[in-house]
């Protein structure tokens, strides 16, 4: 009678809910996610670190010497690209992989609040993303002698960037039923973020219409909040960027909740 405690006759277990249930579930899911990725985690972290540093060093090959302001712009831009890339590209590919393996249904049959599972996912993405950001900044300091001016605002800035990016990727990967399409969409996102988002260069370099579009997309605002916390004097209206990101992160959370609650 080993399961006696659970199935004692006549005792109706109440539905579990509340903060302690949420925190317990978050902890358990985080252990699951970290263990689940541990074989590839060192590789993912290394790849992120290399691409973060590589991005900065690659700029150096294009333009061997840069004015300090532009160097600071590029280096902080590379750091932000590293942060965004994990949530919008690596994360969705991991979810698509679950669908291919057939383990997706099992994961969604687990007795945890969806929001706790999503939060554990954001935490996992954070672990993968931070080294890439640090590598980009380190490479920038060594290669271009960028002078950083790091304020405590770096914590909320990095967090809101990660949460928004990861939740957008999360919502996408769950909303798209076919893993092949998820792979494709995340490739397109990489392309857009790398080439056509004013992250590592000012929005003024883009055609006017595209610059306007980016005022409503999150990427440029992610760059602005992170940049302003690392280097002073490059960004002016950071409050507006936080507002836009706040709206995006809430929208992404709402869409994620909607997608995860949806039953075909």
């Amino acid at each position, binding site marked *: 009678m080993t399961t006696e405690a659970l*199935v*004692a006759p006549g005792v109706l277990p109440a539905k579990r809910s509340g903060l302690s249930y949420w925190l317990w579930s978050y902890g358990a899911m985080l252990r699951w996610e970290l263990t689940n990725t541990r074989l590839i985690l060192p590789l993912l972290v290394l790849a992120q670190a290399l691409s973060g540093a590589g991005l900065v060093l690659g700029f150096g090959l294009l333009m061997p010497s840069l004015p300090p302001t532009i160097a600071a712009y590029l280096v902080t831009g590379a750091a932000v690209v590293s942060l965004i890339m994990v949530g919008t590209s690596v994360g969705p590919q991991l979810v698509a992989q679950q669908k291919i393996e057939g383990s997706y249904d099992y994961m969604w049959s687990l007795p945890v609040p969806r929001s706790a599972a999503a939060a554990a996912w954001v935490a996992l993405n954070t672990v993968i993303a931070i080294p890439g950001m640090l590598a980009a900044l380190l490479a920038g300091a060594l290669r271009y002698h960028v002078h950083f001016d790091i304020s405590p605002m770096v914590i909320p800035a990095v967090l809101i960037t990660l949460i928004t990016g990861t939740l957008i990727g999360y919502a996408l990967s769950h909303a798209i039923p076919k893993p092949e399409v998820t792979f494709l969409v995340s490739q397109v996102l990489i392309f857009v973020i790398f080439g056509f988002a004013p992250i590592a260069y000012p929005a003024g370099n883009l055609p006017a219409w595209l610059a306007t579009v980016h005022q409503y997309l999150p990427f440029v605002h992610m760059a602005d909040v992170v940049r302003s916390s690392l280097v002073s004097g490059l960004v002016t209206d950071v409050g507006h960027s936080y507002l836009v990101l706040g709206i995006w992160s809430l929208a992404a959370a709402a869409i994620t909740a909607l997608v995860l609650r949806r039953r075909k």
Partner: protein
Amino acid sequence: MIGEPLDGPWSFRATDVTKSYNGGKTLANDDISIEVHPGEVFGLLGPNGAGKTTLVKQVIGLLKPTSGSITLGPYDLVDDPDVARQLCSYLPQAQMPIDSFKAQEAIIISGAIRGGPRDQVLRRANEMITALEIEEWRNTLGTKMSGGVRRLVGFIMTTVWPGKVVILDEPTNDVDPLRRRLMWQQIRNLAQDGVAVFLVTHNVMEAEKSVDRLAIIDEGRLVASGTPSSLKTNDRGHVRLQLMLSPGAETPPLPEFVIRDTRAGNNLITVIDESAAATGIAWARDQMVAGTADEYAIGAITLEDVYVRLTGHASAAEFDL
């Protein structure tokens, strides 16, 4: 729980469940009603594509019924998928995603995810690892496990801290015969502890030995339900005469006393009247002399024969003979 009425406060009920796709053109489940009570092992049998997994996914809230209700005790599982996931443990047909996990880790973390207190989860994990004789893989990574060991680990992950209902979709797939027996013993123990065990399988021979009651579904419809012996009442007075045909042989012309027949691989299974047994044996011998068959067997009607009559399909087990 032994001796208590089966129809308890924690009975699981699916009532008139219909699941349709393409605006009603495809009926994956067509008006299915079943009950599973605490303390029993209930089998849901049917050929591949009959709609078994579709039904199960509606129970745990991965799919939503087009109509009908699914309840567990006081809870409406369709309205409240969160409580469905809390109270039902599910072992899917696909292998568990445990490549990066050692067996014991996967079990302990799963117990935590299911809300089990650490010491109790650990104790029960140890008991089950020992009972299923997978001790030597306790610290082996999933990538290094055979399919059968992985299945057994998945089974423990699902039942180390079970819900009120435990749903097992083809649990014995890939498991060796010895450990299958051990697994069935654990499944029986779960029921004795008061869990309602909901077993999905297309292996009829295994189910006949292991379930208390069963339902057979085919093309989305419930075609029979009851105890294994009650389902055989229509075949009272019949016996099965089975021929192992020579490789490549055509099915021979069947004599008039054959009531029905089915072929699975080289197995030709016929159902005949008891009174025709002697004639049937003589006919089978003739087939061996003629080189059409290598051997024959005569025996009592099994659940398999009932299953074939109801679904027109031989089950997976028939190919294993």
